[in-house]
């Protein structure tokens, strides 16, 4: 697959001399789900924020669907959307109102029909007139995901999308995202601290540590390559002994 939905090249972010992200490069192909993993403070949220254009990189470039995020921001972001645990939709608007407004922002055609379709898809019809602030965390997550795919993005960024869901709801959401990615050829960048989830969903993972990509590969075969039983063990090693892994 030569086509790239997301192409990140030599991305660096420095805050007052401190490198949060250091010269990372990666890409995502259509239909591919890539896990962005790493301990807290590894640079995952900074990377996602730079892809979304809400944080300016110190160096490097980001292209979404061929458009440079820095110079062609509006075009690039038209093909993108996201759901993150720290970016809730306004709680004082109803589910329908929120989806309608974000649909307008993303230039969705046949918006009313699309919103109704999403309400059905995410089992939110009964909450159509409910203010988002009154929903349970699991229901809010479904609203965030509905908002995240309202424009049928080519690139979907998910920052711990199932963190507040029970195992059954999380399973349903994972399956939905997998089917969206496969059917719509949507590239997905997924961060999670649930390694079983990552193993089940991601085609490829990138391990970030201290702002750099330490390891990259198939989540099923990568642990064995580094003498670990599973992805969770590998994660712990990355978090505690990144230098040893670098030497291997």
């Amino acid at each position, binding site marked *: 697959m030569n086509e790239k939905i997301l192409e990140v090249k030599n991305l660096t972010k420095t805050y007052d001399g401190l490198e949060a992200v250091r010269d990372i490069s990666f890409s995502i192909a259509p239909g591919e789900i890539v896990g962005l993993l790493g301990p807290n403070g590894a640079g995952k949220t900074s990377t996602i924020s730079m892809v979304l254009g809400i944080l300016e990189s110190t160096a490097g470039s980001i292209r979404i669907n061929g458009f440079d995020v820095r110079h062609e921001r509006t075009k690039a972001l038209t093909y993108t959307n996201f759901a993150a645990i720290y970016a809730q939709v306004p709680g004082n608007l109803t589910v329908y109102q929120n989806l309608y407004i974000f649909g*307008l*922002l993303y230039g969705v055609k046949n918006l009313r029909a699309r919103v109704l379709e999403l309400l059905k898809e995410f089992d939110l019809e009964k909450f159509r007139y409910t203010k988002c602030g009154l929903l349970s965390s699991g229901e809010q997550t479904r609203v965030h995901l509905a908002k995240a795919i309202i424009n049928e993005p080519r690139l979907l960024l998910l920052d711990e999308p199932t963190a507040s869901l029970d195992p059954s709801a999380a399973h349903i959401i994972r399956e939905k995202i997998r089917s969206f990615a496969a059917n719509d050829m949507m590239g997905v960048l997924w961060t999670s601290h649930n390694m079983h989830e990552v193993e089940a969903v991601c085609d490829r993972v990138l391990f970030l540590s201290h702002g750099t990509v330490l390891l990259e590969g198939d989540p099923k075969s990568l642990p064995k390559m580094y003498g670990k039983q599973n992805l969770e063990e590998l994660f712990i090693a990355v978090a505690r002994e990144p230098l040893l892994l670098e030497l291997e």
Partner: protein
Amino acid sequence: MDFKRIYAIFLRQMFLLRHNWTRFSNIFVWIILDVVMWGFITKYLNIIGNAEFNFVSVFLGALILWNFLIRVQQGIMLGFFEDVWSRNFINLFASPLTIGEYIGGLILTCIVTSLLGLFAMLILASVAFGFILFQFGILLVPFIVILFIFGLALGVFTAAFVLYLGPAAEWIAWPLPFFLQPFAGVFYPIAVLPGALQIISKFVPPSYVFEGMRSFLFSGTVSVFSLWVGIGLSVLYLFLAYMFFISIYRSAVRKGRIIRFSAEE
């Protein structure tokens, strides 16, 4: 500029107004109280002044126009604060929305809320106190234009200021017009100010409105040139406020303040 995205920002504010009595009444309550209070004060002044001078036209007219300016500033500011309070910046600025479209949406909202407030004040002042706004004739157009554009400039400037300093700076935004009030000559001629303060007044666009209003009521003439100066200054301040907002936004994106806005770094 995409009108759909401007409309999205406007519609969000309209949804909030339409379904919330508390928010909707905020457009009217303070200004109605102000008009009632000043209406009675001017009536009393008319009585003790033996009606040689119509306080209703001068004071109530000035009050209505000054309140209009404040409503415009607050219209922009409250729209912006809604996004501060609901921590909505990441959702908005990670979408294709541009800063120009965001400000455009807030301006559209503010046109509706400030005009509703203006009409409420006019109806009350004319019914209860016999105030006739149309006594200013066509002059009302430049008066409203200057105050509206300058109110927008103040609103955009205060929004940028809060974006720079974080949510804790919200309190600074409320009294800002009152810092300018002494130089605007709302209730007295600029000539009563000391010389140095009169110079400052020349840079405050509303001073041209209130001086013009008094000049028209007392002598029946207004300097057209001074009204053009008022319009020119207002447009200049709006442009500067917009550029200020853009530079603050760019600095926030560079320093990561958009993603950590509530942390007030």
